């Protein structure tokens, strides 16, 4: 029952005249990591958004714990964290306020946990500044802090290392490693491949 497992069966997605996903299939169990690669326009983002249930595939289905996610989307979403291209942050709120609202809508979070998460991503010095004054890399780090705070079994990440320096990329690695060690699942679209330190990575290459 508690076995978190994501299965994807024969996904076909069209966008206008383009056949974006052509029969994508895979299965991923607890502790598994899947990296989705492919050139620009190969449908990485579309695949991730389809997995989340935002886009409706023409054919095929996504199963979570053996059940079609469409049957109970709210329950599936409660088990899911999705990070898109851009960190979902408000420019006119501080990093801390952003996290308080974004995460708070989903779960209760103690101030101490919030501080710890911000500290962890190196935001101790700037977490009370408005997000509009932060660099792209710092914003990405705020998003990572949010990811860590959500504590959900399934992570779906779109280019999580964009704009990050070496230290930031190591942070992504350790976050992913912890999530996998907890028995969580990680699906990440990446351009250059995840760093080698993340072991047991399976790869899904989307054709152009």
């Amino acid at each position, binding site marked *: 029952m508690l076995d978190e497992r994501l299965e994807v069966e024969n996904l076909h997605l*069209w*966008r*206008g*005249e383009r*056949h974006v996903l052509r029969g994508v299939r895979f299965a991923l169990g607890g502790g598994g990591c899947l990296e989705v690669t492919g050139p620009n326009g190969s449908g990485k983002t579309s695949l991730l958004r389809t997995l989340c249930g935002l886009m*409706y595939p023409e054919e095929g289905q996504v199963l979570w714990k053996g059940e079609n996610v469409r049957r109970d989307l709210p329950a599936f979403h409660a088990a899911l964290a999705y990070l898109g291209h851009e960190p979902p942050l408000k420019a006119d709120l501080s990093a801390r306020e952003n996290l308080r609202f974004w995460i708070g809508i989903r779960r209760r979070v103690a101030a101490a946990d919030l501080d710890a998460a911000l500290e962890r991503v190196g935001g101790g010095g700037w977490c009370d500044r408005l997000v509009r004054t932060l660099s792209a890399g710092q914003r990405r780090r705020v998003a990572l802090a949010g990811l860590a705070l959500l504590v959900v079994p399934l992570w779906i990440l779109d280019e999580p290392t964009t704009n990050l320096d070496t230290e930031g990329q190591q942070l992504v690695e350790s976050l992913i490693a912890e999530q996998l060690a907890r028995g969580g699942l990680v699906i990440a679209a990446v351009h250059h491949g995840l760093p080698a330190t993340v072991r047991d990575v399976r790869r899904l290459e989307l054709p152009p």
Partner: protein
Amino acid sequence: MTWTWFHRLASPPYVYGLAARLTPWFAWPAALLIVAGLWGGLVLAPPDYQQGDGFRIIYVHAPSAWMSLMVYTTMAVAAAVGLIWRIKVAHAVAASCAPIGASFTFAALVTGALWGEPMWGTYWEWDPRLTSELVLLFLYLGYMGLRAGIDDTQRADRASALLAVVGVVNVPIIHYSVTWWNSLHQAPSVMRLGKPTISAAMLLPLLMMLLGFTLYFVAVLLVRLRSEVLARERTASWIREAVSA
């Protein structure tokens, strides 16, 4: 077993072929009825005792007004079906309805105004029915504007379907509010006519026109439906046959 007809009706190739086959079965009776209705309405029906020959506008005004409402209802029902069951053909029906409905709403407004001038002494009267008709035209225009504003057909289908459903929930409220408002501001100067006593010779052509226009709507809808179905279909297997014919 009971659902097979439903599934067949959701299948684009089946619908495409069916629409092509059915069109003449609606088009020709429609043409006959409309011609007969025109003859009956313009020539055979006696002049109204109050409105004289002016009442003959009813034979084009009433069918246009009927179309404007009937097409909107059809559109909203098709849109709801498409929205709930994600049936592409239903969205194609809804999308086909809008331009037809909008043009007949326009015709109803113009013929209503042309009827109003000799009867009320003014082209435009803020009468609840004319006002509701005008609002309906804006609802159609909004629907078409929304479709035109969204590039992706699938998203345009779903967004406009939602609008059609919201609109159909609102139409009775709008009509009620306009009637309520009109009852407060009854203009005394306008001549109000009692309902004309309609004789059989007057009524029969009207019924023929109403039925003729309805069949005509189905025929035009079927032609439009084919084009909308083609535009939504990407799998080539049946399209090749469809377009080579």
